[in-house]
């Protein structure tokens, strides 16, 4: 893991040198990644960058992408958005104006994405993202495409599945990090649980960077709900709270909607994480994973010391979608590419996919992917169900 950090600048330099020499032979199409590469979210950036590089390598090995009679090779360029709006805007300005990038194949965070959109939508640059907010989508953002399931896709099937498993669930407590994602997710989570007949006893906020979780655990334990929903809290924070809850003797259903990295969760919570349901995780080495996912996951484990998750694998799918769209449009003009993207069909790492979500966002810009519910069992992620949304089902059977 830490080796990757040391060698990154070196590796980038080596790649640049390589392309400088190869540049004469065919054209290079630069694809940008804007993600946190420092601070607490650094693992996201590193994982996304790695997955994107694998996808680019695959495309290049298969002869690149051909449009308008020319062959293009993909090259990944990464920028640190520090998970903040200002840096998101800055990385966009640098990408667009300095480096002439027309396609961004991965960005994390609602706030930085909103910052980027101010520029990308005006200048006509395609942004693939994993932001969860509803506010970043709609007909006024035709260049924005989401490459991962968001709560609007996940929550209803996820919560419904949990309620089916535990029919006697009546009360719940919601814990959200006080950030953009947490704030956008909270009302939706409360609403969905209410529709399933679960009463929300409390919805509490905590600041990111909190180190001591006993007070909140004490509160949860004394409310004694049937279920605790950790919403968009990062796995280490959830782990800490679960550990404290375990000490206090609370036993109930643990739900982590944004749960992605089981490794981090297990490392902190240990046995206290047993039985937790995760909404955004996937076991890419398990039975139902595709061959592509198994291969990528094994590679990531070796290169980064961590397996991939739903978030970090997503640039792969974005690049596959982009390749299909460029070939369909027979152009690398982002305006033409964005027009074909909503209807393009491609092979994602999960299998056949396309874009949809018009009913939710008024514009088909959500990548259609299976909703995977996993659970921690004996310290491992176990996939419980993988269900295709109706739109995806229709697309596959088409």
């Amino acid at each position, binding site marked *: 893991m830490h080796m990757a*950090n040391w060698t990154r600048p070196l590796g980038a330099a080596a790649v640049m040198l390589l392309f400088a020499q190869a540049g004469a032979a065919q054209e290079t199409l630069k694809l940008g990644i804007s993600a946190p590469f420092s601070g*607490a979210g650094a693992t996201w950036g*590193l994982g996304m960058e790695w997955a994107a590089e694998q996808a680019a390598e695959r495309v290049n090995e298969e002869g690149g992408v051909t449009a308008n009679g020319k062959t293009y090779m993909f090259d990944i360029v990464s920028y640190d958005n520090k998970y903040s709006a200002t840096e998101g805007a800055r990385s966009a300005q640098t990408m667009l104006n300095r480096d002439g990038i027309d396609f961004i194949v991965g960005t994390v965070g609602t706030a930085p994405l909103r910052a980027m959109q101010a520029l990308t939508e005006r200048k006509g640059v395609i942004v693939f993202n994993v932001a969860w907010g509803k506010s970043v989508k709609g007909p006024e953002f035709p260049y924005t495409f989401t490459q991962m399931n968001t709560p609007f896709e996940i929550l209803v099937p996820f919560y419904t599945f949990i309620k089916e498993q535990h029919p006697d669930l009546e009360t719940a407590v919601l814990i959200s990090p006080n950030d953009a994602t947490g704030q956008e997710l909270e009302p939706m989570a409360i609403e969905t649980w209410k529709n399933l007949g679960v009463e929300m006893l409390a919805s509490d906020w905590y600041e990111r*960077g909190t180190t001591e979780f006993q007070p*909140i655990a004490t509160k949860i334990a004394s409310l004694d709900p049937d279920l605790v929903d950790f919403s968009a809290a990062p796995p280490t924070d959830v782990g800490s709270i679960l550990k404290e809850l375990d000490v206090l003797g609370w036993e109930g259903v643990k739900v982590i909607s944004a749960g992605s990295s089981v490794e981090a969760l297990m490392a902190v919570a240990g046995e206290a994480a047993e039985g937790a349901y995760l909404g955004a995780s996937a076991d890419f080495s398990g039975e139902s994973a595709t061959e592509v996912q198994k291969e990528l996951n094994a590679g990531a484990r070796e290169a980064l*010391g961590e397996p991939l998750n739903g978030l970090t694998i997503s640039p792969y799918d974005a690049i596959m979608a982009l390749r299909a769209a460029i070939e369909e449009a027979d152009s690398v003009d982002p305006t033409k590419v964005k027009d074909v993207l909503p209807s393009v069909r491609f092979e994602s790492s999960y299998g056949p996919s396309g874009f949809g979500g018009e009913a939710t966002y008024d514009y088909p810009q959500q990548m259609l992917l299976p909703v995977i519910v996993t659970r921690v069992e004996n310290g491992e992620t176990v996939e419980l169900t993988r269900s295709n949304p109706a739109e995806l089902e229709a697309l596959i059977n088409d």
Partner: protein
Amino acid sequence: MELFVQLLANTLQIGAVYVLFALGLTLIFGVMKIVNFAHGGFFTAAALIVTSVVPFATVELGAPLWAGYLLAAIVAIVVVLCLGALVYGIGFQHVLKDLNGSFILSIGLLLILNGAYLAIYGGAPRTVPQVLPGTVSIFGAALTAQRLALVIVAAVVTGGLYLLIERTRLGLALRAVAMDQEAAMLQGMPFKRVALYGFLIGAALAACAGVLMAPINAVTPVSGDEFLIKAFIIIIIGGLGSVPGAIIGGLFIALIESVGGYFFDPSTATLATFILVIAFLLVRPQGILGNVE
């Protein structure tokens, strides 16, 4: 009643680390009159070292967990003391009593340290296995054996520091230098050496806090920064440079977080602590026990 005891237990658990961390910071401020932002870097260094030495000792050397942890604790404190001596020698001794200069220097050092930790360890949270597994129940309040040990060790270290300051020759010099540097020098106290010792004791306290925290919370390259901000609030409330003030302030902030987090929510408790500190600075800028200058 049970709830009351549990909230009190929470306060002690949270407060233990706060007190250790803030004691180091307040000692350094008292003796050297510098606001040391790099203090969190010492904490993080110790915690990160524990996360690498424990697996090494238990897996590579086959030592039992407690021995591995003890070895890690010693290595961490020694390394942090060397680091402290290095930054004092290169940097701080040139900016003693220069508030702005030392503040900026400490920020530069913090950036370098954080960057180095990120480069060496990566951003992913690291953990150490619990040395003392199990849960203890005291008057109906539940807490882990590990946390109980933390509270006890922190209390012992705090008591030791108190004795050192009140009963030893070095303690006398530290107090004298903190109250009036020039007068202390006139009594034959070598200011720069006393300042170095004060700085190293402060660094060792931060290292202690880091060592104790490592098996309890996940460690990241920025772990210390969160405690740093808390510790500043604590020493403002307790009085800059006051050792008993840091103890009272640490427990006070822990109480607010524990009770506020329970009755309201942690976000509100965080905001409340900041507003409290502003109120404190305006009404009683010298803190609960600070000196009037």
